[in-house]
Each structure stands twice: as C-alpha cells, then as structure tokens.
C-alpha cells in the first residue's frame, strides 16, 4: 500500500475541534453519513405525509375539499420520486454506504473525503430545489414519477410550467451528488481495504453497496441525458421527445420527436435503479440475519455471485416496463426472458436466507424481526413480479393497482424493512446507546402487519381492474361496490402505519440521551465495524493502528471456539488450522 490519504495520517493532525468543522463542514464519513441520513429521513417524512393525503382521497372520496384532482396527481408524483430517489437511494448509499464502507473494510475514511463532503452538499441542494417546487406558481409537477412526455411538459398537467423544470434540475443536481459519492465508494472498496480484507472476505453489506454503486454510475447517465433533453424540449422548444401534437384544438410547434425514446432512456436508468435500492438491502439483511441467528450466512460465495449477477442482468430488462408502450412486440419476448432469468439469482438469495435461519440460534431482537419481515414482503413482491414479467399477463394488469401493490411490496416496503433492521442493528454502534426494545417491537408489528393490510387488498383491486393514478373511481360497471369500502380499509391501515412511524422517531431520538449504554459490540457481531477501539468510533476510526483481518465475516458458533463468534481481526489459532474445515472459508 503506497498511496496514503490524509485520513491515514496520524490522528491528531486532522481531528476537527470546533462545532462547525466537526458537525457541519465535516469530511468525516460518519458525520456525512448522518447528515445524508437525516436529510433523507426528513424528505421521506414529507413523502409519507403525501401518501397519507392520497389515501385520504382514495378511501373517502368527496370528503376532503382541500384535495383537488391536480393536487392528487402532484402528491402521486412527488411521493414516488422522493421515495425512490431522495429517500431510498440517498439513505442506502449516501447514509449506510458512507457509514459502513470505511468501517467494514478497515479504512480510516473514504479515499477523497472532501469530495465526499461536496457530495452531501449537492444532495442537500437537490432536495432544496425539489422542495422549492411546492412553493412556485402551479406547484410541483404532476406528471407521475416516470415523467413521461409529452404530457409532462404540456398544459393540462399540473406543474407543467415551473414544477417540471425544478424537478429536472433537482434530478441533475442529485446525479452530480451521487457521482461524487459513488466514485468515492467504488474506489474505497477497491483500493483502501485493510490487510487481509480480500474481496471474498468482505461482508455482504459491502458487496451489495459496492455493486449498487457501480450500477448507479452506469445507469444515472441515462436519466441525466433524458433530463437534459426534456429540459431542452421544455425551455428551448426542441422536439427530442415531442411528436407533432394538437392540443386544445391548436397545432403545437413540436414535431418529429419520439416519446418512446424517453421511456427507453428512463427505464434504462429506472430498472437498474430498482437494484440500486435492492442490492444494498440484500447485503445488509444478510448480515443482520447471520448475526442474530448466530450462524454463518449460507452459501456466501453464491450470495456474492448472485449480487453481481443480478446487477449485471439488471441492465438487460428495462423494457419490461414498456410492454404497452407501442414498441415492437418482438422486444417483449426478449425482455420477458431476461426478466424471468433474474428470478434465478434472486431465488438463490431467498433460499440462502432461509437456510441461514434453518437450525440457527435465532434471537428475535428488533433488527431480526425486521429482517425476517423482509423475507416475507420481498418474497411476496417478487412472486407478483413473475406475473408482471410475462407479457400476456402484464397487458391486462398494466396500470392497475396490482402494479402498485407489486412494486410497493418489492421495492417500497422491502427496502424499508431492511432500513429499519439496519438502523436498529447499527444504532448501538452509531449512538453508543441501546434503543427501547418494547417500542421497537411495537413499531415492527404495526409496520409489518399494517403493510399486509395495505397491500394485499390492492392486489385484489388490481385484478378487478381498478386503474392506478385515478383521483376517484366514480361509478363503473366492472368495479363492484365493495371496492370503495376496501379502499377505505386500506386508507385506515395506511394512516395507522404512517402514524406508527412516530414511535420509531420517538424511540430513535429519546434513546440518544436516555437509552442504556450499549457497550462494545452488544450483538456479538464479527464484522470489523464493531471492533473499533471507541464506541461510537472516533474520527479516523481505528486509533493508531489499522486492524488486520484473518477470516471471513461469518465465523459464528464455531465449534471449539471460546465465544460463539470470532471477530474478523482475530488471528487464526493453530487448532483451527488443523481442523481444516474452516480453511475453505478463509482461503
């Protein structure tokens, strides 16, 4: 190792002292991670409130005067965009990626801390630009989170004037922020691992975050370019995505553009984006399951290859979002095939999680409950994906509540379950205190059961043919009268789940001061982040000397070992070497 970052030089040289350098203009990956996380959770709460408003309208139509149809469309759009990009992507990669990468691979910081700090400031700016669209004339865009042209920029769509411009600008800024952070994560994982930390000894959390970041660096360019092109269509009157149109009896100036081109570009980004969110979640849930089941993760190598395989395949499935777009039907065959192939590595992962639990010493702690909850929600969401991946089944289900239920189960609720698992799991490390277990369990059961109360009925509504994104159903022949009462029940469940997140917030903030001191490594975990000299880790993470790694991250319940776990930085004993069985894992 001959390249040395500032962060690798002796501690006292750069330890920040004042409040501002320590907590605001900080270049410490842990502080940046918390800044990312707090900002993401804040916008996430905004999006949660929006979903509550949407549900109020759907459950009790004609009751709330303050929600009119354009408001409703704006809520749908902003809820989707915020949740997918500004909450999930930012919290998983900017938050957990930043916090976990240097600690889990034994580095002192990211390789370029200054750029890492800039990444957060750009992210904050993108959030501010996005939120500003609530306060401009016409309000935020109501084009749907996919922003399909031509409607996204034409009169008649709410926010077609200012809202869409701010949305596109905010996305461009977000992509710049992500690129600065993402380059850091990838380079840090590749070049700054500590002695003995080979790629095949990295915890799966790092594999998930690493692969997701690579996906992001290759997929976000498509969104960047389509945002630029749509911005030009809107502001300069070019026609990249705009065909010749008649609007309100008038010929518009556009001609010759291709709306389907936008859909291709958007989903070339949009499908990898699903895995940008899912892969870090896959990784983190693997580590939580192994730690709390006191058992090594089943099939570590296959788990790694499954992550990499899913990441690679995710670039070849995008047009399964476009079966009804009017593209050449022959494409549907190709994309249905690739889509179903992705089910193979995904199923490998699910089986391996279950086999990790099999005959494990399962501790039903709060993080474990959320992790097991994830296996349920993810399996259910994944199975409905098999329906939608097939062209013939997708056609009638397209744009119904079945689709809403599917993607909320698989990429809404599932990553959120993992995020809760991860927050509860790493809370003792980040704050140095334990959260309140009772409140945590209450939060879990309300969230988990509430999720099913919300989304299971939605599958049924979808089969009935209830279309999504409609302000109100009205009276139609094919929708039975029972559907509105089902909608009311969904709304009540959604409001309960939404409010129960207050328990989580209360627990997190109350426990910072009043929680029991967590001490060192309360879960008995093996990975490096729990082996720091200080809890929470100080600037520079490791004190005077970097740790040395001798084994993989999953030595739980090793026969003959003193404890039921052996940390990664614990040298291999002679007894172990002669036993030979573990040699396989460690080589």
């Amino acid at each position, binding site marked *: *190792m*001959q*390249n*040395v*970052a500032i962060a*690798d030089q002796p501690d006292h040289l750069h330890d920040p002292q004042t409040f501002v350098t320590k907590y605001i203009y900080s270049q410490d990956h842990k502080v940046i991670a918390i800044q990312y996380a707090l900002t993401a959770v804040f916008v996430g709460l905004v999006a949660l409130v929006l979903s509550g408003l949407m549900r109020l309208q759907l459950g009790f139509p004609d009751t709330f005067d303050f929600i009119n149809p354009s408001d409703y469309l704006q809520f749908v759009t902003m809820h989707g965009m915020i949740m997918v990009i500004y909450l999930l992507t930012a919290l998983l990669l900017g938050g957990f990626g930043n916090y976990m990468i240097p600690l889990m691979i034994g580095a002192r910081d990211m*390789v*370029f801390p200054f750029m890492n700090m800039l990444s957060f400031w750009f992210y904050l700016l993108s959030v501010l630009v996005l939120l500003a669209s609530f306060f401009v004339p016409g309000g935020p865009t109501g084009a749907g989170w996919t922003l399909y042209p031509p409607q996204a920029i034409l009169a008649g769509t709410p926010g077609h004037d200012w809202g869409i411009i701010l949305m596109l600008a905010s996305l461009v800024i977000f992509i710049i922020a992500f*690129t600065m952070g993402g*380059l*850091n994560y*990838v*380079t840090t994982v*590749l*070049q*700054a*691992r*500590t*002695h*003995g*930390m*080979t*790629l*095949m000894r990295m915890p799966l959390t790092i594999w998930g975050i690493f692969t997701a970041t690579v996906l992001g*660096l*290759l997929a*976000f*360019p*498509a969104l*960047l*370019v*389509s945002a*630029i*092109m749509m911005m*030009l269509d809107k502001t*300069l*009157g*070019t*026609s*990249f995505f705009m065909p010749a149109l008649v609007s309100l009896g008038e010929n518009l*100036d556009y*001609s*010759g*553009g*291709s709306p389907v*081109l936008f859909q291709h*570009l958007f989903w*070339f980004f949009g499908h990898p984006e699903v895995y940008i969110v899912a892969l870090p979640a896959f990784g983190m849930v693997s580590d939580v399951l192994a730690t709390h089941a006191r058992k090594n993760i089943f099939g570590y190598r296959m788990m790694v290859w499954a992550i990499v395989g899913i990441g690679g395949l995710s670039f070849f499935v995008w047009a399964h979002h476009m079966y009804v777009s009017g593209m050449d039907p022959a494409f549907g065959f190709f994309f249905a095939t690739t889509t179903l192939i992705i089910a193979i590595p995904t199923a490998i992962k699910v089986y391996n999680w279950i086999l990790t639990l099999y005959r494990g010493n399962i501790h039903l702690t709060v993080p474990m409950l959320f992790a097991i909850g994830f296996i349920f929600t993810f399996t259910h969401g994944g199975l409905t994906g098999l329906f939608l991946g097939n062209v013939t089944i997708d056609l009638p289900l397209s744009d119904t509540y079945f689709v809403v239920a599917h993607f909320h189960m698989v990429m809404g609720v599932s990553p959120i379950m993992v995020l809760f698992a991860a927050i509860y799991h790493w809370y003792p490390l980040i704050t140095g205190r334990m959260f309140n277990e009772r409140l945590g369990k209450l939060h879990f059961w309300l969230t988990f059961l509430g999720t099913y109360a919300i989304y299971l009925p939605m599958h049924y509504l979808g089969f009935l043919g209830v279309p999504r994104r409609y302000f109100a159903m009205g009276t139609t022949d094919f929708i039975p009268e029972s559907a509105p009462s089902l909608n009311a029940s969904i709304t009540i469940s959604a409001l309960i789940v939404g409010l129960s997140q207050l328990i989580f917030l209360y627990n997190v903030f109350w426990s910072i001061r009043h929680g029991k001191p967590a001490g060192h490594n309360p879960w008995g975990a093996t990975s490096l982040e729990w082996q720091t000299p200080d809890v929470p880790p100080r600037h520079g993470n490791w004190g005077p000397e970097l740790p040395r790694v001798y084994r993989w991250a999953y030595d739980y319940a090793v026969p003959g070992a003193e404890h039921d776990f052996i940390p990664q930085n614990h040298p291999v004993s002679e007894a172990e070497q002669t036993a030979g069985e573990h040699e396989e894992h460690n080589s």
Partner: protein
Amino acid sequence: MTIQTDKSSSYAEPGIDGMVSDWSADKQNFDLPWGKLMMWIFLLSDTFIFSVFLTGYMNVRLSQTDNWPNASEVFALEIGGVHLPLILIAIMTFVLITSSGTMAMAVNCAYNRDRRKTVLLMALTALLGASFVSMQVFEWSKLISEGVRPWGNPFGAAQFGSAFFMITGFHGLHVTAGVIYLIVIARRVSRGYYEDKGYAIVEITGLYWHFVDLVWVFIFAFFYLW
C-alpha cells in the same frame, strides 16, 4: 509509508502473479493511485453519458420523416473562392488530436521530473484546446447567422439543430472544463506543489484530456460524416 511517485509497481510481485495475489489476498485491486482509478471509473460513467447522447441522436434521426440536412454541405466554407466541405471540422479535429500528442509528451516529462517542459507542454495543450473551443464558437455563430436554431433550421429536420447544439455544446463544456483543469494543474506543477506527492496527477489530467478527444472522434464520425 512512502508515497507513490512514479510508475513502479506497488504490487507485492511484478506482473500477473502479483496482480493475482493482490486481488485474492490483500488491500488494493488495481496497481494504480487512488485518483487515477477514480478518474477511470468517472470516465466509464461519462462514456455512458455520451453513448446515451449519441444513441438518442441516432434514434431521433432514424425516426425522422423530414429531410436530414447534408452535414458536409452545412459545414462547408468558402475559402479564397474554393468550396471546401467540412474544412473547419477537419481543422478542429486535427487541432484536438494534436493536443492529445502534446499531452502525452507532458505526462512523459512529468514522470521524468522535467517541470519546465511539463508546464510548457501542458500550456500548449490548453492553448490547442482553447483554440478548438474558439473554432467551435465560430462554427456556432456561423450556423446561427444562417438561421439554424435548436427548434428549427432552414435545411431540413428540426432535430438536426437540436442534436447539434446539444451534443457539441456538451462536448464543448467538457473541453472548456479540461482547459481550466489543465491550467490549474500546470500552475501547481510550476510551483513545485507535486514534488513530494508525485506526478501521477499529470497523467490523470491526461486521461481526461484523451477521453475528451476520443469522444470527439465518435461525434465527428456519427454527426459530421454520417
């Protein structure tokens, strides 16, 4: 903990064996300074940006019903009464490729610790880059004076102007950024800022510069020659 100053290998053993043992056994996967690897990854990402730009351009061009203007006529100049198709673009391409050559020489001088020559060659590269941008400004203003706009032009399909201004504009921004980057780094080299740190940064700057040139070759082929 010494700091890498030149291209000597930092792997435990040289060659493929060293790479294999490092990949499977220890800290770093690539025998590169951190900044250089990061630049490579950034360029990979940037490649995707330009690929999407060019793919989008090809898509709108192929789905066009209007006549696509003949690029070699649109970009022709009358010099001394002689009609020369694409002459300006040819000169611009020549200038940019030449600047890649001077950049490569600058990298070589930097690793040989010849600061004076490095600074001179980098300045020359920046100058060639700046002249490329000024020729682009000339080209843009000529087309604008002939009535070409992003939303329409007198020669045919409106998307001709849209794609032209968007793609050459985005590339021009890259060249401009590269010129600024070159000037900043050259200034630091002349002040001896890298005497201790090593001169990998000149090569990193060079990577970016060669990338911008390479992208231009594709733009030249797909936009001007097609």
